[in-house]
């Protein structure tokens, strides 16, 4: 029984917070249809010119494509390294596991701007010896993103591992399975979902990363967020509203679909 069911006052306050949370997302929609070249609300005439600009100006598609490539590479590198690390910690339970974990999570807990300056230092140092993985190159950005998102993959995979029953691993070992058999045939199938979640989350984090990207790119490696940043800082370009609406629609669709799937699964489980 719910002794403390929120009353009308609590519900009203929470509703206000909910409105506050959704307000800026809704506000973007009318602005994206403005016929003017500056940030304004359309009164009589609604125009699609800023959506047309997204299609016609190749910079947007190039930025999106660059962000996708960087996101895929960074997510694969980060999740791969995080998977090995988390498996090692889980299977071997070394002394100082807490300390090692803290080290692995460092880029996540350090202030983003400090990470950004650190990675800037790293990439301009690399620039002195090569021009592929360097300042303002896509490979450099992918590497820096991998550093920033790896801790998130470590957290997600470790959480998934914590739910695996250790006895199945012990059973496999006692029947003579080697290290790689235990990992490949016993443990990995049990944390499949966690690994996929880690890949997805790290990709999204890289796709929207801007704080570090600002420090390590200038004119060549212009990712989608970097392009939006430029449109936001100088004269506010309503094309940002159009791209924002596109991104919001994608997020709302994914969240609604996920919620629907989660609910129907919960209902099926409740029935079974």
């Amino acid at each position, binding site marked *: *029984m719910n*002794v*403390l*069911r*929120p*009353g009308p006052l*609590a*519900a009203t*306050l*929470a509703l206000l*917070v*909910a409105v506050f*949370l*959704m307000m*800026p*997302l*809704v*506000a*973007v929609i009318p602005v994206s249809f403005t016929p003017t070249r500056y*940030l304004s*609300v359309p009164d009589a005439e609604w125009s699609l010119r800023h959506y047309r600009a997204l299609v016609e100006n190749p910079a947007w598609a190039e930025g999106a494509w660059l962000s996708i490539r960087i996101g895929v590479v960074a997510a694969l590198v980060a999740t791969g*390294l*995080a998977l*090995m*690390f988390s498996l*090692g910690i889980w299977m*071997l339970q070394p002394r100082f596991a807490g300390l*090692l974990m803290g*080290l*692995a999570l*460092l*880029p996540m807990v350090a*202030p*983003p*701007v*400090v990470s950004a*300056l*650190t*990675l800037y*230092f*790293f990439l301009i140092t690399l620039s002195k010896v090569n021009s592929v993985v360097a300042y303002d190159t896509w490979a450099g950005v992918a590497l820096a993103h*991998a550093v920033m998102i*790896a801790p998130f993959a470590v957290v997600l995979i470790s959480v998934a591992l914590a739910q695996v029953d250790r006895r199945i691993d012990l059973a496999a070992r006692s029947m003579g399975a080697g*290290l790689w058999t235990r990992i490949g045939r016993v443990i990995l199938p049990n944390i499949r979902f966690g690994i996929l979640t880690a890949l997805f989350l790290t990709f*999204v984090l890289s796709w*929207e990363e*801007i*704080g570090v990207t*600002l420090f390590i790119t200038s004119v060549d490696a212009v990712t989608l967020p970097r392009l939006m*940043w430029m449109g*936001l*800082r100088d004269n506010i370009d309503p094309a*940002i*509203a159009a791209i*924002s609406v596109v991104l*919001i629609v994608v*997020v709302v669709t*994914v*969240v609604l679909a996920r*919620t629907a799937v989660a609910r129907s699964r919960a209902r099926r489980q409740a029935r079974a």
Partner: protein
Amino acid sequence: MSQPSRFLLLIGPLLLFLAATYLVPFLGVMRWSVTLPEPGLGQYRTALGDPLVLTVFWRTLRICAVVTVSAVAAAYVITLLWVRGSAVQRLVVELCILIPFWISVLTRAFGWLALLSNKGLINGWLQSLGLLSEPLTLVRNEFGVIVGMTHFLIPFAVFPLASAMRSVDERVLMAARGMGAGRARIFWQVFVPMTKPGILGAGLVVFVFALGFFVTPAILGGGRSVMVAELIYLRIFQSPDWGLGAAISVILMLAVGVLLAAMMRQVRQGASK
């Protein structure tokens, strides 16, 4: 294969990777802070003595304090409904938390510009209703920064609060009611004190996040209410003074380290109780 070599094979790569890309370069940043433009601790003296830098430090602390209180309070209200509301309330609240959470910081800052700027929606409504003749300055100042940062950080406060509220033992609430406490009394004297660790945790998460925040203040502050992170950016890229930028970064890193250590201690004490 022996135990230690397996250990290195699995755990080593990520640690080597982070050492090469993060730890060693951070030492390099520390070196900048004591060697540029000349060897010595001059940059730290500037960082802790220069009135301009100190103004930025104080502004950052002030904004972070306000943002922490408002984000945690707003998060508490909405989490209460998420955890203890009816099925419909839970669903609505969940969507209103998750959707903004997944949307990029740039889009959210832009939304606030669209709402708060001089030609934005809020000023437009107020003027068309005849309530205002001159637009209110709601953005490119501290107010805009606080609104934008509070908005960004509410979802991060929700998760620790939700786990604290879910772990409240229902029987304690029933006992309070059985002994005749009203709803308000159960809430303020039983429920809130029992969720205090969650409130502290959420506050610390928000505060630490807010300290190093860069994007939202840079966009909504419009260069007028510069916070620490933006100051570092300006010292590195606009008025090249790498030594000072590096020194401020090291100070910021230390401050966050101390806060996190305090949080860990709190958690450990809570666990041992």
